[in-house]
């Protein structure tokens, strides 16, 4: 059904078509489709200055306007790229007489988190959790809750390696009811909380984002959803280090992203120290070298804290 809704909302535009805005008169040349969702289609486009941008076009002017409003207020938060940067908002009148609304944003070129982890190893999980927590912290501080946090709405960009949130369709003002959500990531679906937009809603979804890497086909709720999720976390070896923190987030025991971040960093430091001690005791330099390289993730993270 999801598919049907998307088909209804999709707007096919041929490669090479030039879109000219009705109000601002900017020109965009369509390269290819890069995504589609409930309210519209996203195309990769070239601007007059050859810059690549993403253009989201929709028949639903008002729903699109809502997203633009969110992007505008996120863009106001300085030094913190929360969501894509907004470039232009306009309407397009097709020769057929039909009129569409569109907005143009920064093109974020990246790969899915699952793919990145598969290629580069599970050490990156801690890095990504911290990065996401930092972004969420900024978002929450400016009065928003991301809402529809899921793997489809995230991309990992390279140099520097960074998690980016790409779809702000679910972003909701703090205290209101979550605008858009997806079952697997939604705490209310699991009977583990309300759909009120508060920081802990995003923290729950964040844990599910990590779980989805290990359960790509997801799993369904049961009468004992809480135990089910906690167990699913506990049995993943890669997540052992973070298990305690992830479980706390599922249970809603963190009120703020910063609390979870502090807890997680502490856990990682403790582990790091323990490994150091072990290494010193053994005195085996080869093993030490291996461990150091495997801990590069932790180093990256620590350095990112200071810069």
């Amino acid at each position, binding site marked *: *059904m999801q598919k049907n809704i998307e088909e209804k909302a999709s707007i096919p535009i041929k490669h090479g078509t030039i879109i000219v805005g009705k109000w601002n008169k900017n020109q965009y040349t369509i390269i290819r489709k890069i995504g589609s969702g409930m309210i519209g289609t996203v195309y990769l486009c070239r601007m007059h200055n050859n810059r690549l941008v993403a253009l989201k076009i929709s028949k639903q*002017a*008002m729903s699109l*306007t*809502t997203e633009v409003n969110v992007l505008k207020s996120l863009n106001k938060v300085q030094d913190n790229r929360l969501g894509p940067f907004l470039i232009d*908002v306009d309407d397009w009148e097709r020769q057929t007489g039909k009129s569409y609304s569109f907005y143009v944003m920064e093109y974020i070129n990246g790969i899915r988190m699952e793919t990145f982890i598969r290629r580069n190893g599970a050490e990156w999980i801690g890095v990504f959790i911290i990065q996401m927590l930092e972004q969420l912290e900024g978002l929450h501080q400016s009065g928003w809750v991301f809402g529809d946090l899921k793997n489809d709405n995230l991309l990992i960009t390279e140099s520097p390696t960074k998690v980016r949130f790409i779809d702000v369709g679910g972003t909701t003002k703090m205290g209101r009811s979550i605008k858009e959500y997806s*079952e697997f990531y939604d705490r209310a*679906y699991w009977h583990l909380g309300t759909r009120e937009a508060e920081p802990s809603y995003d923290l729950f979804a964040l844990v599910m984002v990590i779980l989805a890497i290990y359960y790509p086909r997801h799993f369904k709720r049961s009468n004992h959803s809480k135990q089910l999720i906690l167990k699913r976390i506990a049995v993943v070896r890669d997540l052992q280090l973070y298990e305690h923190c992830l479980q706390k987030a599922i249970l809603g025991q963190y009120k703020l992203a910063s609390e979870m971040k502090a807890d997680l960093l502490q856990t990682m430091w403790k582990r790091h120290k323990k490994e150091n001690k072990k290494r010193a005791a053994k005195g085996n330099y080869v093993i030490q070298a291996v461990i150091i390289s495997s801990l590069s993730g932790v180093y990256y993270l620590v350095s990112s804290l200071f810069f």
Partner: protein
Amino acid sequence: MNKGTLRQILLITDGCSNSGENPVESAKVAFENGITVNVIGILDDYESETASGFEEIEQIAKAGGGINQVVYKEDLSQTVQAVTRQAMTQTLQGFVNKELTNIFGSSQTLEEIEPEKRGEVMEIVEDLGETCHLEVLILVDTSASMNDKLLTVKEALIDLSINLHARVGENNFAIFQFPKRKDPIGLVHNWAKELDSISVIFPKLVSGGVTPTGPAIREAMYQFGKKEMRRSMYRAEEYRREG
């Protein structure tokens, strides 16, 4: 600002009406009385979206100023939310468009003003949608073919209640089934702020009989009025007691 009340009928059915007056007419009357009619059609797994009977759903929603959506059982929960919310926004946009026409003459709509200003107006519409009072009367088809879908409907409605509970504005829900023996509709859950007790009631809904969608919508419309009357009666009583 005085917070208004939005009134919606949410009709959940799996097919065509086959008894009584034309539901499209009833929906039109409801809309004229300030009540939006939204319709969700549930497909059987073997049916496609173009199955017969679903044209009527579109016509009912159109006449009722609301939204229609056809879904498979599994997607009901999310659809119920989306339809309820979209309908609220649509109704509010309708008010705004009317105001715009009053101010600028001819038929100026939101889509025709420049994107910058559209954004500002949309913010107001969203605020209203979050804070206004909402009354939703859910009208569930309990004819024979709905038998295997009622459990899903129940879950979707509990979910709706959870979701709307997070709104700032006040919510009121009531659930009616149709048909109910000889009557066009029967009360399942009286007006309340939450739908907490439906787990108990829902399994008892006996499915059977024809599908009198038209009469059901007409009757549902009066249930808003009744509630209002009851309220004002309470108020009158209170005054008397106080006096």
